């Protein structure tokens, strides 16, 4: 395909500039994608927040023996996926892991003092409004003396995290703008270097689109290879990225951050499109500024 070979020949001639543009595109896309994905994990997909997906229901001591009968009533409510009685041993295990001193104190007085507790899990797709209605419904079930809603307790922290998520999103977008500037500078350099060639091609009757087409192919090549590099880096660095994220957010009640094959594929598609758009916009801006378009 001559158009591809023309584009590749141009890139070969400007080898150093091509390498710089390719790797800076990849680096910016990777950084932008990581920020964007984190932003989505924190805020975009609320299902990742465990506190949003469950509540603890405490049964009154009077009805402790009838706890089993409460389960069907709770399960019948909108968006409730699961309702299970938390056994005393299970609860003590939890305390042992996170609050060992408290576990020791309870051990001394006996587990009889622990109230009967039902762990209720919500469907991931349950909206916040519907969730609130369901929680209200659970509160009114006879025998349930208290509903411990983790989401409410951490709502202040979640609101702050949402701002963090917005900030990360903005930083991702700014990085994309940096990529547009990198591309603009690159294509300005290309114009300067290939001015004679452009003039000669015009001398043969080349149209504007003919002169632009190899550069658009070049933009496609950058976007393709940079997103491939990006996917590889994300895939091989997914363990380190998850640790970095989870050491903070998992302790706040978020699901474990993971980059699976589906996420990597989506990241690749997003990086390709973001890279392509940045190079096309940067290229056209350079052409307009250089008055060759």
């Amino acid at each position, binding site marked *: 395909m*001559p158009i591809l070979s023309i584009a590749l020949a141009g890139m070969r001639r400007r080898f150093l500039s091509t390498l710089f543009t390719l790797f800076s595109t990849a680096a910016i896309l990777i950084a932008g994608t990581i920020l964007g994905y984190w932003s989505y994990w924190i805020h975009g997909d609320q299902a990742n927040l465990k506190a949003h997906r469950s509540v603890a229901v405490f049964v009154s001591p009077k009805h402790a023996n009838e706890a089993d009968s409460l389960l069907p009533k709770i399960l019948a409510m909108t968006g409730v996926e699961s309702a299970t009685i938390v056994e005393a041993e299970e609860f003590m295990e939890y305390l042992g892991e996170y609050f060992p001193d408290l576990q020791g104190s309870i051990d001394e007085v006996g587990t009889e003092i622990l109230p009967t507790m039902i762990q209720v899990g919500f469907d991931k797709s349950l909206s916040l409004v519907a969730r609130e209605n369901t929680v209200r419904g659970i509160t009114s079930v006879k025998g349930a003396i208290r509903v411990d809603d983790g989401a409410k307790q951490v709502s202040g922290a979640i609101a702050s995290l949402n701002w963090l998520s917005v900030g990360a999103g903005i930083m991702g977008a700014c990085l994309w703008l940096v990529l547009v500037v990198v591309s603009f500078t690159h294509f300005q350099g290309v114009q300067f270097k290939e001015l004679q*060639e452009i003039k000669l*091609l015009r*001398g*043969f*009757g*080349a149209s504007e689109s*003919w002169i632009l*087409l190899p550069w658009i192919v070049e933009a496609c090549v950058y976007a393709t290879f940079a997103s491939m590099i990006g996917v590889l880096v994300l895939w091989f660095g997914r363990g380190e990225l998850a640790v970095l994220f989870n050491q903070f957010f998992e302790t706040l009640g978020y699901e474990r951050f993971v980059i699976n094959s589906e996420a990597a594929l989506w990241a690749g598609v997003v990086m390709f499109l973001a890279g392509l758009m940045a190079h096309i916009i940067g290229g056209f801006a350079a052409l307009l500024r250089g008055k060759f378009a």
Partner: protein
Amino acid sequence: MITLKRVSKFYDTNTQVLRAVDFSLGKGDFFFVVGDSGAGKTTLLKLMSGEEKPSKGSVLLNGVADVSTDSRVIRSFRKRTGFVHQDFKLFLDRTVLENVSLPLYFGRAGTGIKRISLFGGSVKKVVLDAMKLVDLPEKMFNTKVGNLSGGERQRVAIARAIINRPDVLIADEPTGSLDHNHTWAIIDLFQKLNLKGMAIILATHDRDIVRKVRKPTAHLEKGVLRFDTREGACLF
């Protein structure tokens, strides 16, 4: 075909290269343009090809379209024009094939030469035919132009200019780097092409060529064009 009406060209306020030049090149014409170095020969040719725009006056194609204003007309005209540059304007890092075949991407109607698609197509035969016309051996087909001698490069430039069978050939010192034999082989080729109807305008320093070929000559001196239609008239 190409008409220059009272064309002047300034590069800055103190440098006037051409002064109110009137000139007309019709179908099948053959003109020499002679003059000292810096007389404005190259500028005149560039104005005729639309590569330069006049500071004053107008360059008309077929008596109507103004080169300076109508980009679509000039693009179509350029597809029907071959230009041999004084400095060849070849891509040294590319092969003879890649250089000679360049105009084929833009094509032109009525020549029977198929335009190369940007997405594929073979051009080998057409390029080899053009190479044969300028006496470039077939084995040079894939040679990088940077590895060729000055004379060979000049012949590559000429092959590129004629590959599309243009209606007009504008040649700026096309034999400047050629030895005696190749010079005359190229001049013979130009004459044959001219007999087939190709209009040719050729800028040269070579008095011998002008005297022996006996074609009308335009003489440029300090930007003023003097004209002698007596064939073989050499004013310098």
